[in-house]
């Protein structure tokens, strides 16, 4: 198992894949892991330590451990992977069945004071339909016990670009407007920790860009922002760090490019354009680092055993074959391929 994860990706907790250990164990056995909690996880503003959550026989989250620091972290996974369960546990709205969820070192839940530090935008499209967007933000500000709720509500409405619709009832809002109203409520008390469950759902591309911009700016101010999505492109564009959940387990965590490089048991594919594709292909096939070469549409599609050994030999092959390299690029660096790899394993 560890050979697959040769080394720890930068920024990822060393034991970021706590679910691994539990996998060999049958479902009936205890799901907690005896492994010690890594120090950097426990010290993170948001720490999830050997957390499991099950509903009867259904395991929603299975022995997950990670820590999240400042910046934007994307929580990625298909529907039903346990993202919302995890979000609710982080927000203290759902106790874990096992393990611990720590927010700034204190257990989440049962402590209303914590909500001065956390802003949550839930996935569910629930709303007080009879309130206007402005009234909703104002109510949230007042319930957050802010000294100047009017100013805070105004600021939040402006941040999410909802001014035009702020005086209409939420009941008449489009999905995108509802999302922004929820975000305004989550932001209204300027929390250092933001938990956003599927925040871009229903937003049009322009709003999406605006919101990504906003989140990037807020992250730059040192906030901890965790957002979930099942859309890879969103995560790829916004998050420096990703957590990938599959079927309740944490499948990967860290920088996704770093993750990709760690997956050495799957061939990497590269696209090569050269002055003489056939000669280059002949030379490449002779190399141990190359598993297969295909001529596709005026380019070479190369499957390499692993990233580093291929990139070391490719220049030498070209020189020996007398071929000029026009283009060399990895074709599966996208988060999509990382994700497909993790899900299909």
């Amino acid at each position: 198992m560890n050979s697959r994860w040769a080394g720890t990706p930068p920024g990822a907790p060393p034991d970021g894949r706590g679910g691994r250990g539990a996998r060999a164990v049958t479902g009936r056995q205890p799901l907690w892991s005896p492994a010690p909690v890594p120090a950097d996880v426990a010290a993170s503003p948001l720490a999830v330590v050997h957390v499991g959550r099950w509903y009867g026989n259904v395991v929603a989250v299975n022995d997950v451990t990670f820590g999240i620091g400042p910046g934007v972290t994307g929580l990625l996974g298909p529907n039903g992977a346990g993202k919302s369960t995890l979000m609710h546990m982080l927000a203290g709205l759902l106790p874990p069945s096992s393990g611990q969820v720590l927010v700034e070192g204190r257990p989440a839940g049962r402590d209303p004071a914590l909500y001065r530090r956390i802003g949550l935008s839930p996935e569910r499209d629930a709303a007080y339909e009879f309130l206007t967007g402005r009234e909703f933000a104002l109510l949230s500000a007042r319930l957050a016990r802010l000294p100047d709720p009017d100013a805070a509500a105004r600021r939040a409405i402006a941040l999410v670009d909802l001014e035009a619709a702020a005086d209409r009832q939420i009941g008449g809002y489009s999905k995108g407007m509802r999302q922004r109203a929820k975000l305004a409520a989550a932001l209204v008390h300027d929390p250092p920790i933001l938990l956003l469950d599927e925040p871009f759902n229903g937003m049009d591309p322009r709003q999406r860009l605006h919101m990504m911009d906003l989140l990037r700016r807020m992250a730059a101010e040192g906030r901890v922002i965790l957002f979930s999505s099942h859309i890879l492109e969103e995560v790829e564009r916004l998050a420096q760090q990703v957590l990938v959940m599959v079927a309740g387990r944490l499948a990967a965590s860290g920088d996704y490019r770093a993750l990709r490089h760690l997956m050495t048991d799957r061939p990497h594919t590269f696209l090569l354009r050269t002055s003489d594709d056939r000669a280059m292909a002949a030379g490449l096939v002779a190399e141990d680092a190359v598993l297969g070469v295909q001529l596709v549409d005026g380019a070479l599609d190369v499957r390499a055993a692993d990233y580093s050994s291929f990139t070391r030999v490719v220049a030498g092959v070209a020189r020996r074959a007398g071929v000029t390299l026009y283009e060399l690029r990895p074709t599966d660096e996208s988060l999509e391929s990382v994700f497909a790899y993790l899900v299909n394993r």
Partner: protein
Amino acid sequence: MGRDGTLRQLLVLTARQALGRRRMLLALLAACAPVLVAAIYRIAGGGEYEAWTAGLLNGLVVTTLLPLVALIVGTSVLGGEVEDGTIVYLLVRPIPRREIVLAKLAVGTAVTAVVIGASAVVATLVSLPGTAGPGTAVAALASVAWGALIYSSIAIALSLLTGHALIVGLAYVYIWEGVVAGLFTGTRLVSVHQYVLGVAAALDPTQPSLLPWHLDLATSLVLGAVVAAGATVLAIARLARFEVAERP
């Protein structure tokens, strides 16, 4: 509590929720029924005004309408938010959970007491000629308010305990209080209906002779207060441990 006015915010929010909804229409429609009957009675000119008015108040208002409206309103003020998922917006704020429950209880009680109380007062004044009317009306209003508080607290606790709060509450009222308490008289001690009648009987000069049996005022107040306080404490404790359902 509520030093930043958070309780007031919750009260205003809940009042807007309760009054803006269609079930308010249902409650108002229900409130018209006793007045209608009283009017028919006066037009028809049937005798025995005091006995008949007591029958109207005890039979229709206190036995049927009061618990019905209190349960419908009481299960919706908090249960509606749980069902819709909007409860999350209250839970992620730094406010004590008791403020949420107390605001919901206050609004639920007030709505029921006003709607059914007004209905009882008007129906009494319509059906009782002469001087006996006002005394009976005041007694009816007080007992309805007392019942509204107890039933509302039960409804709110139920809406946090089960997804079928309304039907469970109705089963308690119409099976336990309606049928079982009629057959096994000892069970009257655990019947909110009897606490309401006890208050009415103590305050109304005409009623005692018309009821075959009733609790005295002190017992009605003490037992009612125990039930209301117990249900409210239970609701606060449940809300503090509230788990947001993953699957809606």
